[in-house]
């Protein structure tokens, strides 16, 4: 693609057929993987996507060897079959042996990927002019998207949305508490197969665009970012879809506006920016606000403790406003000059020369400190 400006891209995206197709494709792909990724993340199966996409590779090669066709749908059908086989092998390894799921994932991932690479090198040595192009599935090549590919993505996304809405309650239940789901009489195997099949389907659809190696990021990144902003499953799924779609659009825009920037990796990088931003700036879970709250909390506590200490001293006198020497406070660890200044600002304490005294308000506040704190805990 030739070099162009980002603004130029956005004016072209509505008129240029190829650009529009690619943008739509990556947006829809980002949305569907974001949605399904939420489920994978919440089930702690984040790496499942990685295993599935790698497991799809031999399927692509075998489909090519059998049919000799380079047509995307045939190859993706092969990918789907081997992706599904890989997934259900992982599940049965976990179920039948004592291996943990990370081990099973790693085993299947490398086994299938190794076999896939073997087949790819074999195909490359064949005297068949048609061979070139299979390796685009390794890193993806969004430029090869055509309108029918996008239609396929739209159909799958629509289907996925429909199933999601239909079985929303069952999905949520299984994600939160699988054993309990069983006792309520739901067929957990069916729900599980449904979710997993859609995850496999979405990943396979993305192979052409993003490729085997980076596909799992499309599943995880939008979901991980979305989790930071909400405490509701529905909002999380929705946000993940939005983040995914925007990653697709921005990724395409950026790669289209530069020469020699392949789209898949750029999309993944944009998605990672969403993640980074969310980790830092989310109001409830973000690092920044957490740190600010932590510091503020500490300051408040120091202030309260100092006030309580002063209250303790003031109580020894009949007149609570009787002045005491500031140096008395040096015995107290939490005391600093600035806490004293803050207490004066809040009108809890009055200063006169080297002496301080509690005000009426300060005394009452100090007395109610403990009870106030315990009601805030409620």
């Amino acid at each position, binding site marked *: 693609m030739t070099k162009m400006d980002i603004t130029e891209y956005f004016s072209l995206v509505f008129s240029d057929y190829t650009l529009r197709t690619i943008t739509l494709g990556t947006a829809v792909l980002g949305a569907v993987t974001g949605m399904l990724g939420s489920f994978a993340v919440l089930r702690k199966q984040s790496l499942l996507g990685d295993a599935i996409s790698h497991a799809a590779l031999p399927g692509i090669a075998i489909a090519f060897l059998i049919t000799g066709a380079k047509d995307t749908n045939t190859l993706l059908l092969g990918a789907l079959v081997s992706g599904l086989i890989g997934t259900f092998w992982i599940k049965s390894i976990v179920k039948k042996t004592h291996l943990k799921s990370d081990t099973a994932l790693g085993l299947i991932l490398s086994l299938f990927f190794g076999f896939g690479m073997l087949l790819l090198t074999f195909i490359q040595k064949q005297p068949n002019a048609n061979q070139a192009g299979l390796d685009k599935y390794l890193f993806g090549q969004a430029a090869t998207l055509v309108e029918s590919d996008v239609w396929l993505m739209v159909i799958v996304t629509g289907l996925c949305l429909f199933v999601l809405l239909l079985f929303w309650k*069952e999905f949520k239940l299984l994600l*939160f508490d699988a*054993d*309990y789901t*069983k*006792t309520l009489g*739901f067929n957990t195997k069916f729900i599980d197969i449904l979710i997993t099949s859609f995850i496999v389907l979405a990943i396979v659809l993305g192979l052409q665009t993003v490729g085997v190696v980076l596909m799992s990021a499309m599943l995880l990144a939008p979901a991980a970012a979305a989790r930071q902003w909400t405490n509701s499953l529905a909002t999380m799924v929705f946000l993940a879809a939005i983040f995914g779609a925007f990653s697709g659009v921005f990724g395409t825009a950026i790669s289209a506006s530069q020469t020699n920037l392949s789209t898949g990796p750029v999309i993944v990088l944009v998605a990672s920016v969403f993640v980074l931003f969310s980790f830092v700036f989310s109001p409830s879970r973000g690092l920044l606000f957490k740190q600010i709250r932590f510091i503020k909390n500490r300051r408040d506590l120091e202030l309260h403790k100092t006030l309580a200490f002063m209250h303790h001293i003031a109580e020894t006198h009949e007149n609570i406003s009787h002045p005491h020497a500031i140096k008395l406070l040096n015995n107290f660890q939490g005391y600093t000059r600035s806490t004293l200044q803050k207490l004066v600002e809040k009108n809890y304490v009055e200063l006169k020369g080297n002496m301080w005294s509690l005000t009426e308000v300060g005394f009452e506040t100090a007395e109610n400190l403990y009870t106030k704190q315990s009601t805030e805990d409620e």
Partner: protein
Amino acid sequence: MKQKIAVKVDDLTVAYNYKPVLWDIDLEIPEGVLMAIVGPNGAGKSTLIKSILGILKPIAGSVTIYGKPYEKQRQLVAYVPQKGSVDWDFPTTALDVVMMGTYGSLGWIKRPRQKEKKAALEALEKVGMLAFKGRQISQLSGGQQQRIFLARALVQNASIYFMDEPFQGVDATTEIAIINILKELRKAGKTVIVVHHDLQTVPEYFDWVTFLNVKKIATGPVKDIFNDDNLTKTYGINFKVSVQE
């Protein structure tokens, strides 16, 4: 007085690997009892409950609820899993978790409506958690999380309740609140089966007890069988727990 049998377990044997976790368990639980299942770690207490509820597949044996196979009687049974069995950072609220108790009677696809929401709110009130209905579940204390699990089971409006260590990691206030609810359930004629760890409180809380250590050691009224002899048989060391009353 001849009591109806709520739960009947026959020849139940369960194994994870080669060694059986439960061996040939026969158990009859009469209707309306508040029963503790006690035994050392690894005795198969949770496994027993999970096998009765069909979460685990036994090697042999059968379970009937009021004389019919469990699969046909699910609606009569509610389950309170161990608190640690789920991820409390899941993005959902207290009310939403309690609503899950209505999903079984709703069946596939149907969404909960006003009626289900009302039932969930009532259950939250019963466990003293109404004020926390909108709270994200990770922001609840351990005791509050346990109450939410209890409320979820209460919503099911079952006849038989299975609870896996509902007192684990809760403070004294919550423990009393929970036991009071369990006693109320018994008063209403429900059958409550609880995996329990604190032997000291067995005579105070329960009227029925099952001693379990892979095999069933004994089952019956607390006042008849909760004694040093059975405790020694179950735990394998000499026991002196003075039985109150």
